[in-house]
């Protein structure tokens, strides 16, 4: 009973660490996905007096994903109040060219400014609408969201670490006694420490497994998925391969470091 309790304290601490790490991963992933979605929705309109060389522009500005020219027909249709065909053709020639520029990814505010400035340097380009105002507020909201999640997870990590360091003293005391006795019968340090390492690796694996169950459950939860649907994105909450690998690695490293702390703090009593 007592040994289960001892296992539990490390496992819970590890799960809590893994939980905050995975939350960070999910936040990062959601933001990336959301940025992609925003990038798809976002475009810049360019008005040019001459035809633009799309491939040249894309070469000069790596951020540009696609340039499509907007057909002037719509505009003309609206003006089409009994104009002769010849006049329409004339109008078509004099009308400036409209282009829609899509970006590869969702830009930061400064990236937009820079692109705008670069494009305006072309003499043919007369006007650019970059919708920077609405972009700014969305982008700032995104940054705020990321900051809040990061602060939340990092403070959770810090609190857990503090708890672990308090527990460490208890573990140290507990393991010290056994290690001492083994030492009195001539067990070398590696043998005295072996049990500790085995225990911490077992605990680390249990903790990764618990996190795996936890996040598999969360990933399948309809409420959580609905929230992402509201925002209009699809996010992989838990990747059973890469995420599990990450969590297991972190968990094993943390518990081995803790074991090392205990071993380094091991003193033979007189």
């Amino acid at each position: 009973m007592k040994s289960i309790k001892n296992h539990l304290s490390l496992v819970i601490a590890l799960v809590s660490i893994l939980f905050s790490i995975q939350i960070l991963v999910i936040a990062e992933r959601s933001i990336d996905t959301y940025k992609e979605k925003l990038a798809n929705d976002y475009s810049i309109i360019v008005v040019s007096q001459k035809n633009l060389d799309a491939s040249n522009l894309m070469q000069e500005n790596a951020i540009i994903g696609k340039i499509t020219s907007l057909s002037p027909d719509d505009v003309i249709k609206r003006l089409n109040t009994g104009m002769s065909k010849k006049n329409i053709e004339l109008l078509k020639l004099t009308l400036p060219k409209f282009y829609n520029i899509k970006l590869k990814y969702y830009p930061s505010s400064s990236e937009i400014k820079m692109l705008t400035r670069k494009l305006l340097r072309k003499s043919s380009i007369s006007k650019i609408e970059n919708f920077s105002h609405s972009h700014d507020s969305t982008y700032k909201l995104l940054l705020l969201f990321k900051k809040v999640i990061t602060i939340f997870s990092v403070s959770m990590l810090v609190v857990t670490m503090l708890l672990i360091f308090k527990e460490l003293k208890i573990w140290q005391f507990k393991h010290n006694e056994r290690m001492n006795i083994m030492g009195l019968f001539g067990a070398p340090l590696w043998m005295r420490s072996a049990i500790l390492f085995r225990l911490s690796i077992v605990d680390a694996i249990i903790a990764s497994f618990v996190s795996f169950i936890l996040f598999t459950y969360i990933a399948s939860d309809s409420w959580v998925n609905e929230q992402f649907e509201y925002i209009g994105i699809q996010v992989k909450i838990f990747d059973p391969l890469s995420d599990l690998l990450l969590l297991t690695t972190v968990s094993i490293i943390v518990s081995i470091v803790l074991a090392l702390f205990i071993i380094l703090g091991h003193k033979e009593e007189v």
Partner: protein
Amino acid sequence: MDKVIIADNLSLAYSDDETIINKVKFSIDSGSFVFITGASGSGKSTLLKSLYGALNPQEGSLVVGGVELRGVSNSKLNFLRKHIGIVFQDYKLVKEWTIEKNIMLPLLINGYEKGVTNNQVDSLLKHVRLKHQAGKYPQELSGGEQQRVAMARALSHNPILILADEPTGNLDDYSAELIWNLLVGANEQLKTTVMVVTHHIPENIKVDYKHYHIEFGRINEVN
């Protein structure tokens, strides 16, 4: 005759301002049976601690099993300890291990194979009359029973030297006799050197022994 312990000008202390054992000289023949007596606080446990290397001599030289213990290296000390069986005054059983596993410890450290280990533990459990308690944990046993576990553990790996700190302190006459028989048996059959700290030397003990008395930091041979 070979000497298993040689102390020369040996001083023992926990701190610089209080010397417990003061510049003593003695030697113990290999295969002998030795009793150590002395008042409470005279330094009997302290002397044993120095013999298994838990207390570094303050002064002089202490050679046990051919190993100089003053400033001994960890690896040499571990090597020596593998061949010593200790019964501690406070038993020092591992709480989270069963009785069986506790007795097994020196055998595991010495790398005995499984079959030998199990046979040895089995026979020792019978000798100390704890066969039926094998799967229990130390805190589920009485003080006297724990003391018998400690004795079984000290004997398990057939050490060259047994250091026993009041091994019958908590036992009734019957159990005490059991312990004396085990120690005398190891001494006679395996030529194990036995050093026992006790308050009462049993009158009917069937072994030739030496008796040292500790008083005022000195170790004096009696009789």
